[in-house]
């Protein structure tokens, strides 16, 4: 068990090392010189050289890579070229928006999807099932940013109930901050809820056909008790797995929704860094996303092992 954990962990470190080099190399291959973007169209060659030197861009690739990795390992993510402040601070500021947004969206999608999927499975081919199938098909098909626009048109510009966008900051109090996140989280949650409804429905259906549910029914347990006490808990593994994977998707994939609602999140930072060739910030953010995905996968793998003893025996 310990050996297995060790192997998985080593794999995680190796993946991250490979990813970090790949990110660095790709960033270097991107056309566009950060210094000439900052100086604009009137820049003279000597001004350009001065700025390139100031940013350390005149040093060889491997040296810059080494400095970056050494910095990251010691907790120093470097200075953003364009903002002129430490990138670590920028990422933390942005996470204060993106993390709550992703968690809020996950929560919403669970609240919608788990009951809906369970009812659909319990009353297979009934009205609940038809509604659930319709809902999941439509919500997966409709893009999140479009839902976002509809929400803004309805609740902000027409009814005037909600702010159209922006984020007041957690310093302004819990309620204004949450209010700013309600519509973005809804827009993000809907497609996720569609996926999760399907997963829940399938998983509950499967457990309903298992021997232990039949036994429970035969022992005289009511259908409702069998559903909530036996079928649903046993369907949790695929549901949790999906949630784990969705979380990374939500954090990294919120960029369009963050744009529509003008939220200063991590996705917007990544986009801005890319267009300004703020290479340091870009590298750090992409590495962060990569680390998030790799670590999340690792945790999901580990949770299988924790939940299901049979898997532990196999490996």
């Amino acid at each position: 068990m310990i050996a297995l954990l060790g192997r998985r962990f080593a794999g995680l470190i190796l993946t991250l090392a490979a990813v970090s080099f790949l990110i660095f190399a790709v960033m270097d291959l991107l056309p566009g010189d950060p210094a000439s973007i900052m100086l604009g169209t009137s820049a003279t060659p000597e001004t350009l050289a001065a700025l390139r030197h100031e940013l350390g861009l005149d040093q060889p690739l491997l040296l810059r890579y080494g400095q970056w990795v050494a910095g990251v390992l010691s907790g120093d993510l470097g200075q953003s070229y364009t903002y002129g402040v430490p990138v670590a601070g920028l990422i933390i500021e942005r996470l204060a928006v993106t993390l709550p947004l992703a968690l809020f969206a996950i929560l919403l999608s669970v609240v919608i999807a788990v009951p809906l999927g369970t009812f659909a499975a319990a009353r297979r081919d009934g009205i609940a099932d038809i509604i659930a199938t319709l809902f999941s098909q439509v919500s997966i098909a409709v893009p999140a940013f479009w839902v976002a626009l509809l929400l803004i048109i309805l609740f902000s510009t027409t009814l005037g109930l909600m702010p159209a966008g922006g984020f007041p900051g957690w310093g302004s109090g819990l309620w204004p901050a949450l209010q700013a996140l309600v519509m973005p989280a809804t827009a993000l949650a809907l497609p996720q809820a569609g996926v999760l409804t399907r997963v829940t429905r399938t998983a509950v259906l499967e457990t309903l056909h298992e021997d232990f549910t039949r036994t429970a029914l035969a022992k005289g347990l009511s259908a409702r008790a069998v559903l909530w006490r036996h079928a649903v808990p046993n369907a949790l593994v695929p549901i949790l797995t999906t949630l784990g994977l969705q979380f990374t998707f939500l954090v990294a994939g919120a960029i369009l929704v963050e744009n529509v609602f003008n939220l200063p999140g991590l996705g917007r930072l990544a986009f801005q860094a890319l267009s300004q060739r703020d290479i340091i910030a870009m590298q750090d953010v992409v590495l962060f996303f990569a680390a998030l995905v790799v670590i999340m996968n690792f945790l999901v793998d580990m949770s299988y092992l924790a939940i299901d003893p049979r898997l532990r025996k196999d490996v």
Partner: protein
Amino acid sequence: MITSLFPAPFTRLAQRLSLSAALSVVIMASVAMPAQAGKAVLNLGMSVEPTGLDPTIAAPVAIGQVTWQNVFEGLVSIDESGKVRPQLAKSWDVSPDGLTYTFKLQTGVKFHDGETFNSTTAKFALERARGKDSVNPQKRFFASIASIDTPDPETLVLHLSQSTGSLLYWLGWPASVMVGPKSAASDKTHPVGTGPFKFVNWAKGDKVELAKNEAYWNSQVSVKLDKVTFRFIADPQAQAAALKAGDVDAIPEFAAPELMSSFKDDPRLVTKIGNTELKVVAGMNNSRKPFDDKRVRQALMMAIDRQTVIDGAWSGLGTAIGSHYTPNDPGYQDMTGVLPYNPEKAKALLAEAGYPNGFTFTIKSPQMAYAPRSAQVMQAMFAEIGVTMNIEPTEFPAKWVQDVMKDRAYEMTIVAHAEPMDIDIYSRDPYYFNYKNPVFNDLVKKVQETTDPALQIKINEEAQKILAEDVPALYLFVMPKLGVWDKNLKGLWENEPIPSNVLTNVAWKE
């Protein structure tokens, strides 16, 4: 009672709902109240977030649009009509040979951190801008300054190596603002100037907040706003929503002309269509075949109906131009009649140049809305004279700056030139047009050799004419400034002779 019609649980639920609704109304009202009460607060929306807040070390226009004239001031400033006005220098004297500028400075001026502004500070700021390690985006402005003297705290003397007729105008630019020796190094993230507003906070990705400078030196100015928040909203739909929902009070440069008409029905808002210095031109690589042939360039110009381009690209909002000059520049001449739309003549010119069957080329088009839209209209018009234009989307600024500006590996491109009065770019070598015309270069030199504005205007007239006939770039249109703001808001600039958001005279109607 109506509620008694429903079973008890519903009644309780209804009570709870109405209670929470009432509560949220109270909370929302209390959140909204402070903004309403004093009416000395302004929320201003901008499309682009600045990268750093010091206009003297990086080029992006958005930096000046937040800090120029609000936080930072110059020796001179440029007013809404584009004229040079005294600011930190109250007067000046230019020697007859144009080589010595003597400025008399304002007294009692302090930076926001309490540091005194005097001739030594001014010298520091100019030395920093022109020095060896300077990364000032307009370093060339200061190239002719040979030495700087400070005979006393109120007097600043610039000795030039050659006459520079545009120097005063350039000293009014964002890149020439005065910075303090103690604060200059941190101006990028925490700008400290002498202006009517002090920097308060920058929530990156979201907003920059400024507050009134109670100790502002200029007693002739009465600043009405206590607090200003610049909010950065990239998406035009989100901008429109923020305006309609009242989240922002003004967007001085609205990003989508096609949405302008949607504000007409809103009684709370006004729309103002002003002029800018943004010249949309399709530059050609003048050293490449077939663009090295003047007749080809002229034929392409005559194939274009500028009004159709404006209609297609910018919803009909814009002014056609025939040279690299805008109607609000001094000495503007309408050059649209030099090579007017005439496909027949264009075809004949092409045949004369040896292309009776046309030719094929590629335009590198940045992603800003105006560029691909203009390119598509031009593509259709070129097809009428047998010329095939392929459109290659080119990411701006990164790839565009690399391919077009640096490597000059392109045939045609299209971009809006934002710098005011920058007709001299056609004399720069190297510059992306690869345009080389000694007669034109001479004119640009002559403008700098005189300090007489009337003579400068006359020379610039001639320069406009040369460009209109030579067409190193296809001159399309000047972009309008699309302002949308609360109808009770006064004092925002309607025109933009230089990219800025000057808030000194902005106030809410009493």
